[in-house]
């Protein structure tokens, strides 16, 4: 399906990541959005509030993030594509509803423009310390998809991808920006609508009497039904059977929740996306994502200038984590150096993936600024010895 031209601001723009993300959402067909302001994500909702009335949509600022994070789900069941946007404290408040979306298989997008944490932390400064929360913040077993853009252009492109993945897998997608990428302004090229591929909502082909709302085929993703058309489906956050009816048993739980995690885990290959820079001969394998992957590019240059065979592996989709490819690369490396704006989050996943194949070294940073590429270089030099 091609993008609805109404939402596509085709052309070359000079936009910050927050604004670009908003444009991506509009291009992806988001017409109803809810949010609550919080630095540094506010610009996303501000832009969407001014853009939606132009394209026949509605933005409502809700009374809080909890309301926003469930209003989007009401809108999605109503047929809309919808998202909400927040940062640290607001995202923490949304955790119950991330779980609801996962359990009810409601395709929607949560944008998190990360700032320094924990708690109120550093509202106006960058961080990448919500990465584990994105994956584990709600109670119970579930899987999400998370994406970490590193430029305004990617904020646009990958926002569309986020909506598409949400629809394809019927999962909440966490769009993991950060203050730095959100407030960074660069050229953003928005293609014409017919160059933008949109994943259509997967509606059932069955008539109401044959439709089982939560019965999935081999792709493990059940089709949805339109409302008001006699399907009369039931949606619940309780453990439910294929009809969507609550069933309080370990068997129902196993059938449902296992599928929910498996639809992502067993199809991870279709979802994973990463970039590699100079990894062919890399002896020191740098791993970084989001804005930090750009900082590390500089380290890479510096290292190569010094004759160190460094390479960079950048997960673009961070959850599910592209562990398999990483392990392959690590096997050829002397050391793996993980650079992230936190005191160790994705590095845990890297350690698991590498599984002793090479020593893993973290270059932590509490956030509030970006890494100094020279500092990172020092570590690269150390491990390269």
């Amino acid at each position: 399906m091609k993008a609805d031209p109404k939402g596509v601001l085709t052309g070359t723009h000079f936009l910050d990541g927050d604004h670009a993300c908003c444009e991506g959402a509009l291009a992806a067909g988001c017409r109803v959005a809810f949010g609550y302001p919080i630095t540094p994500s506010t610009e996303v909702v501000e832009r969407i509030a001014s853009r939606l009335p132009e394209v026949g949509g509605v933005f409502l600022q809700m009374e809080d993030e909890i309301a926003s994070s469930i209003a989007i789900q009401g809108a999605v069941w109503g047929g809309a594509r919808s998202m909400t946007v927040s940062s640290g404290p607001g995202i923490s408040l949304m955790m119950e509803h991330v779980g609801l979306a996962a359990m009810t298989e409601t395709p929607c997008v949560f944008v998190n423009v990360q700032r320094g944490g924990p708690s109120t932390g550093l509202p106006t400064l960058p961080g990448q310390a919500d990465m584990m929360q994105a994956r584990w913040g709600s109670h119970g077993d579930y899987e999400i998809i998370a994406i970490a853009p590193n430029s305004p252009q990617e904020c646009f492109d990958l926002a569309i991808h986020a909506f598409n993945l949400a629809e394809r897998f019927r999962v909440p997608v966490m769009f993991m920006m950060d203050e730095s990428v959100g407030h960074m302004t660069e050229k953003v090229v928005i293609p014409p609508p017919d160059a933008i591929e949109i994943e259509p909502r997967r509606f059932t082909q069955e008539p109401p009497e044959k439709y089982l709302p939560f019965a999935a085929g081999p792709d493990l993703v059940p089709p949805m039904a339109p409302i008001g058309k006699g399907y009369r489906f039931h949606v619940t956050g309780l453990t439910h059977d294929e009809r969507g009816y609550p069933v309080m048993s370990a068997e129902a739980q196993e059938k449902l929740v296992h599928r929910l995690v498996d639809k992502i885990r067993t199809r991870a290959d279709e979802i994973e996306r990463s970039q590699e820079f100079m990894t062919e001969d890399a002896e020191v394998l740098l791993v970084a994502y989001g804005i930090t992957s750009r900082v590390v590019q500089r380290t890479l240059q510096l290292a190569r200038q010094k004759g160190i065979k460094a390479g960079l592996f950048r997960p673009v989709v961070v959850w599910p984590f592209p562990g398999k490819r990483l392990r392959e690369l690590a096997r050829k490396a002397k050391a793996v150096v993980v650079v992230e704006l936190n005191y160790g989050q994705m590095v845990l996943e890297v350690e698991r993936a590498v599984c002793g194949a090479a020593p893993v070294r973290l270059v932590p940073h509490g956030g509030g600024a970006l890494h100094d590429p020279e500092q990172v270089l020092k570590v690269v030099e150390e491990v390269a010895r």
Partner: protein
Amino acid sequence: MKQRVELKIGGFGGQGVILAGMIMGRGAAIHDGLDATLTQSFGPEARGGACSAQVVLSPDRNLYPCVSHPDILVVMSQPAYDKFIGEVKPGALLLYEESLVKPEPLPPGVKAYGIPATQLAEELGRRMVLNIVMVGFLAALTDAVSLEAVKKALAESVPKGTEKLNLDAFQKGFEYGRKLVAQKK
């Protein structure tokens, strides 16, 4: 443009520092076909204190987005000068608002040019356009972004209805800069 240029613009919050950076970045990115990244120091600082816009300009894909050692520093307040002057590259270009900034101590090798931008802006009846005067001044003193491009970007970036005022402000700064260059030569 052959290589990466790092530009930093500093001042008080409310002086329009970000807009100045935006115009430069936009000019480069949209109209000069360069790669440009504008970043900003944001936050409570934006309510006073030293606030800044950083622009990285480069002929090819600029991956590393930060300005660590500006080639060009433009300052409109003393705190901004004090805070940022230590970062500049050897031989950097410094542009400053004369009545608000005393560029002391000046690191050796830095080329410093002052402009009474506040006064020039006040002559236009709007102190607010001080930042645009500085952009004009900047355009006169460097060719990191082409004059054409800056002007176009300026017109696109300011609120509708204020284009003339802003172009006048630009012109004032630009001319002042040209004169200065001519003098120095």
